[in-house]
């Protein structure tokens, strides 16, 4: 594995979770993976802790893709239902719990958008989202190093590549849809997506391989 070797994960956990009280362990301090494992037992306290910990992230993905609070709430709820039903098939080697959840939420959101919306995303929404992805002070502070590198790389992209990236990667638009939306040839749209992704790929091969991409 390139970014998610067990050493890095364990080091982080050792730092954070050692020295916890041994009696009535507060579930709020459980590692994400342990909380998810516990979710499968149906314990309501673990379930509510899980929802509280991730609802902001999950709803954030859903609202970013759909732009519709009601639809986003439906998607966020479905995401948690899915996580709850399928906690057993989560595999930490494939990525963090956060990535697992955001992937579920994103897939559900894309499906919902494809089913409902014939219109491509509004231009102002697209630009606002690209700005949000590259300039979120709150997340700059919290993000791990890999996320920060990725964010910086997105910010360095030429605007048209950044737009193509967000259209394909966040809104799930095909190269054809990107081409129509930007009024450019199909080949140009494909090149923009590929070039942007290629540049971002470079951020993965950083010297410190110790953390996962979130």
């Amino acid at each position: 594995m390139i970014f998610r070797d067990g050493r890095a994960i364990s080091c982080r956990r050792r730092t954070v979770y050692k020295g916890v009280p041994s009696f009535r362990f507060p579930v709020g301090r459980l590692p994400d993976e342990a909380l998810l494992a516990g979710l499968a037992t149906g314990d309501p306290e673990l379930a509510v802790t899980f929802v509280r910990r991730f609802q902001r992230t999950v709803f954030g993905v859903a609202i970013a893709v759909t732009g519709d609070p009601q639809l986003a709430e439906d998607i966020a709820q479905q995401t948690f239902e899915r996580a709850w039903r399928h906690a057993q098939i989560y595999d930490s080697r494939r990525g963090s719990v956060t990535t697992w959840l955001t992937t579920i939420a994103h897939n559900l959101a894309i499906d919902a958008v494809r089913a409902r919306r014939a219109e491509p995303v509004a231009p102002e929404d697209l630009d606002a989202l690209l700005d949000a992805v590259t300039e979120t002070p709150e997340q700059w502070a919290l993000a791990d190093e890999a996320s920060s590198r990725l964010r910086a790389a997105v910010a360095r992209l030429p605007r048209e590549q950044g737009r193509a990236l967000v259209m394909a990667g966040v809104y799930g638009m095909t190269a054809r849809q990107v081409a129509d939306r930007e009024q450019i040839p199909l080949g140009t749209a494909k090149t923009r997506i590929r070039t942007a992704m290629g540049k971002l790929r470079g951020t993965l091969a950083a010297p410190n391989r110790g953390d996962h991409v979130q």
Partner: protein
Amino acid sequence: MSNDVTCERLREIGAELALGVLPGRERAEAVAHLDRCAACREYVGHMTLVGDGLIGLLPGHEPPPGFETRVMRALEKDATAHEGDPHPRTVGPARGPVRGRLRAARLRTASAVAAFAVAFGVLGWAVGTAVENVTASPPASSSVTAGSRLLTGSLTSASAPARPAGDLYAHPGEPGWIYMSVDLADAGTPYSGQVRCTLERSDGSTVRVGTFALRNGYGEWGTAAPVDATTLTGARLTAPDGTVLATGHFTGGPKT
């Protein structure tokens, strides 16, 4: 075949494939190529990580008031709905062992392809979704009653008992679950390979709950397991040759 995708062609469409926006026919041809080309699998795996990372950059957003309550209600409803399932995928007492086996099988499969886990990311969670019908059955609502009486403990290395070597968590229930993060490297045991986990009870009996892999002394693992808070005392990790690598005692949980 005339429309065989070459590596060069794959590199042109790999980004779109990883982002899930490649139209059906092209996608099928690309996936067929990945089936037989490890280098391109790795390439697309990296692109998938980039795509996941991009989603991870989206700003968080508080859901509307009452969201948490509505989700919890939906989860309870879901549990109740499956309680009287006429075609249960897992039934009553069989649930624990069946789930345990499924999880063990999945973990074995995962280990076998660990080197390519990133590369398979493009199929990644989607594969998980595809197998959802055979693997996951929500717990019956009857089990949605226990408060959180989580047991915790620390692992210590058999060779350097003074050094902490990981954390243990156990949640009572039938099935309950256990989860551990293991870190034997600092304690001087950078063991790589399979380890067996055995739970110890106050009456001296033991129960094997499964095996998992450590890499350079590190690993994390969880499984469904019978956990009785009144009798569970500890856990032990052993190598295949029987060498005890680490032991731990549960200290948390209810007083009895």
